[in-house]
């Protein structure tokens, strides 16, 4: 997912235009919080939490469920950043009715 966010190509190196680059561009207009960096850091935070977990998640839940919940919390934080903050900044409506607004 982080690769997608960066626009990294599936095969080989290199990256193209991406959600991150558009966020960075919009941020040059808005001078707001640096959302792209926040999302990036949250990806890293979630990954490092997940890496502390046992490969067998069932064992992990039995032995130390707190770490499991911590990893879930970090993932949830990024869900909010992506689904609320990013869609807000990009002005994307996740909607199938092209209704009127006012």
């Amino acid at each position, binding site marked *: 997912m982080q690769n997608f966010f960066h626009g990294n190509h599936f095969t080989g190196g290199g990256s193209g235009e991406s959600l991150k680059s558009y966020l960075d561009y919009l941020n040059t207009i808005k001078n*707001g919080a640096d959302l792209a960096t926040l999302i990036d850091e949250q990806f890293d935070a979630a990954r490092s939490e997940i890496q502390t977990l046992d490969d067998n998640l069932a064992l992990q839940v039995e032995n130390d469920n707190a770490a499991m919940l911590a990893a879930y919390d970090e993932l949830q934080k990024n869900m909010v950043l992506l689904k609320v903050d990013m869609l807000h900044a990009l002005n994307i409506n996740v909607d199938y009715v092209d209704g009127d607004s*006012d």
Partner: protein
Amino acid sequence: MLRDSPPGTYLQRQSDAAPLAVFRILFGLLMLWSMVRFAANGWIEKLYLEPTFFFSYYGFGWVQPPGDLTYLLFVVCGISAVLVAIGYKYRSAVILFFLSFTYIELMDKTTYLNHYYFISIVSFLMIFLPAHAYFSVDARFDSDLRSQKVPSWTIDSLKLLLFIVYFYAGLAKLNSDWLVEAMPLKIWLPSLYALPFLGDLLQKEWTHYAFSWSGALYDLSIPFLLLIHKTRLAAFALVVVFHLLTRVFFPIGMFPYIMIASTLIFFDASFHHRILDKLSRAIRVSKARFDNARTYRFRRPAFQKASLFIVGLFFAVQILFPFRHLMYPGELFWTEEGYRFSWRVMLMEKAGHASFKVVDPDTGRRLYVDNSQFLTRFQEKQMSTQPDFILEYAHYLKEHFRERGIRDPEIYAESHVALNGRRSRPFIAPDVDLTTITPSLKHKTWILPFNESIKGM
């Protein structure tokens, strides 16, 4: 309008009826077009037939879409719009239009738009105006009704309503987000990069400020410019340019055309006579028959008194109601307590996400609700940023899980909202069991504080 005359003589003053007749015809035709467009876009199904649950206005839970009869409701609304336009059985027609249109709007507040509210209250006002006295089917066949003149207050009341709409919309724009941050235009305009000619310009920050400031200035000044004879033509040109620009920028539907047509009421009668001349030639109806120099009289003096009383009360409400947010603590844009029905147009861009945790206190088991199982995307979007929606949905979930065998489910909302370019922050207190809260118009203490202030109206 009022000038120096005492109210008694003002109420006896008469005006040419042509502006009222043109208003009636245009309003009816635009409403017919709205209904046809709504149905043709498939919105009857998408908004009123496909959802399994509908969000109600406080006190209007009994207004629900009547299944397949919803089509009939729209047909009734469309036909009554035609009858209003031609002025046939006008009073009954406009009452029927007001009732059917308002019923449709009350079925689900997800679809709330200021301009739907505008149409509802204009049609309510029209019930008390003799818009059928001139150039109508009713007046064609009823010589008692046929009148070239109507009391001035009947035309002025429409002007006053438009004045309130514009001026209040302008007042609402005098806030720090709009003027200092150029929000939410700064979010909306850059996404229109694909527009020919304007696309590049809309990426520039100064453009966002220019549009914000000129928009506020337009709303505040246009009602005055329309009232003053000297500036009227220029003002109308501004009306057309402004509303067509909003049409290009935003998916704003019929609203621009409705406002452009409505503001014609400010023009002198001679202008409306020219319109009716052309129309009468096109449809081969003699206009001369209506030019009888008679003044419209209410059938009984009591009708005139009652109409004046209701119209007076109506305007008292219209002037005061938009300020009801002053009775609530907290940031208006955040809580939206007193936000609707007050001409706050285009002021906010909100994004949110709400997930609901259902807890069975008997077993301690919990689960998270998949919102798409109960709500359409559109409903979920509206729900996630508006506290009254969240509460109503939580109560609906309570009933649902009761039927599924949980004796006394507790419902908690975990939600985040981003407003006008700010970082998202928690919205609803996550430790409040929403099933213990009774829906009311009182301040909602379970909304988390915004911790920032947006200064202004």
